[in-house]
């Protein structure tokens, strides 16, 4: 556990030492803030449902930017040799870095949006249930995206390549649903594709419903992505 935290802590410090964390969170918050204002002024509804749905798409662009550096840069700079020859397991390196990105996401991206809750609470009578589950949902969605980003970062030494691979995988998962239109919905492929479709699993959260399937889905995506990233790290040793 101490090893894991050591890696997470270093990663967090690295985030705040580079402009990327500030740039990404500023862009994210500016866009989300603009959308929040727009939705609020047009809808005049004390809820964050619209905002959550929009964050959804923004995170597809933002999450790979947060994770692109994590393993790609270590491989490019050779610092991976320090980590992989230290008395640390490979999975601890991967999970430690993932946790670093999750903490950054929670504090720098999600954290500041909490004042929206305050605002609509002051101006109206919001139903706090869906807001809470919405936050749980968007957090799980973000974490899933970040895990996929970590996997993409393990694939290459180049951050930019890692970013685009991350986006490509996320878009595939995003539109997997549409594939079932081709394969038909009744069959195995159709239902597999529609299960894979990532955003479908998070719309319920925004309406105030936490379903076990969706939570399991999020944790499965995270586990599979991080497992594959660890395997990739290990295969580097065999090459």
């Amino acid at each position, binding site marked *: 556990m*101490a*090893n894991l935290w*050591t*890696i997470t802590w*270093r990663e967090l*410090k*690295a985030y705040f*030492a*580079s402009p990327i964390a500030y740039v990404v969170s500023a862009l994210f918050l500016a866009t989300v803030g603009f959308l929040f204002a727009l939705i609020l002024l047009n809808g005049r509804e004390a809820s964050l449902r619209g905002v959550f749905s929009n964050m959804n798409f923004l995170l597809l662009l933002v999450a790979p930017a947060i994770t692109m550096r994590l393993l790609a840069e270590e491989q490019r*700079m*050779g*610092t*991976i*040799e*320090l*980590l*992989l*020859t*230290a*008395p*640390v*397991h490979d999975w601890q390196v991967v999970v430690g870095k993932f946790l670093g990105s999750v903490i950054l996401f929670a504090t720098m991206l999600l954290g500041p949006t909490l004042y929206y809750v305050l605002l609509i609470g002051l101006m109206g009578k919001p139903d706090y249930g869906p807001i809470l589950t919405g936050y749980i949902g968007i957090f799980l969605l973000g974490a899933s995206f970040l895990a996929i980003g970590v996997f993409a970062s393990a694939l290459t030494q180049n951050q930019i390549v890692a970013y685009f691979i991350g986006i490509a995988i996320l878009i595939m998962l995003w539109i997997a649903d549409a594939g079932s239109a081709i394969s038909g919905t009744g069959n195995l492929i159709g239902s597999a594709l529609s299960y894979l479709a990532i955003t479908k699993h998070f719309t319920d959260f925004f309406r105030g419903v936490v379903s076990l399937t969706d939570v399991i889905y999020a944790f499965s995506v995270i586990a599979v992505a991080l497992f594959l990233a660890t395997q990739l790290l290990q295969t580097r*040793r*065999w*090459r």
Partner: protein
Amino acid sequence: MENGNVMIQAQNLAKMYGNAHALRDVTFEVQKGEILGFLGPNGAGKTTTMRILTGFMPPSAGSARVAGFDVFTDSIEVRKRIGYLPESVPLYYEMSVWDYLDFAARLRGVKDRDTAIERAMEMTNISERADQLIGKLSKGYKQRVGIAQAIVHNPEVLILDEPTIGLDPKQIIEIRNLIKSLAGDHTVILSTHILPEVSQTCSRILIINDGKIVAEDTPERLTARVRGAEHIHLQVAQPAPEIPTEIEKVQGVLGVTAKGDNEYEIETNLGADRRADIAALAVQRGWGVLEMRPVSMSLEEVFLKLTTEEKSAGDGE
């Protein structure tokens, strides 16, 4: 051959990258407290061997043990005991020297980190740079931070891949002295392609070429072994055409070659010093000896001879 003093043991190590052999059948031992030098041209397999010993990559065949633990099956135990400086120094440029060493110490589970970091910084002479960002340091300082990282947890075994590369002559001497001072308590393997480095720091040398060990001995004995005979350089005031034939009559002399107008190179049996006999002969004949000295083969020559011999033997296969 298991005994209490063997710290590192490599048995028939082999490594393939695709179809290319990076290492074949490498076997060696390092005793506790010894400094072993890996010498070889770039791409000979030095880094590969070190990466196997540190658990960075597994061998394709063969096995290795460090402090009694298998590098593959007990990798974590081995890594706890090793300090490693990879060829490309693994530095995080955005961190300060202190933070970086603190990170390295935490990774290795060091208890009293402040003391350990201060000690490592003192040994590598970087104490005054503690708060500087690594990215802003000169190449020499970066290299020393890399070494500090390798010794911060006071490991039993130190594996240093090209530790003095990129340093200026003064820093090279400092680092060599540091490495020498670590011997005894620590077992050290260092690799280099610079020959004086091994002759000055190492107690034993292992010459690797093309993935194979071509020689293993102390610097002095390696030189002697390759030579096969002693050589004496002779310079006289009065050169005469009969000098070579006259000297060849001296017992133990194998041959004489003229090296210019008044200089000769005399080859004698290994271990036999014939200088007194030759001097007596020269005085008797009135040649007027200006200079007479034994010629020792430099490690450069040893190295070239061994590695080129290996190449021609390999071509013949």
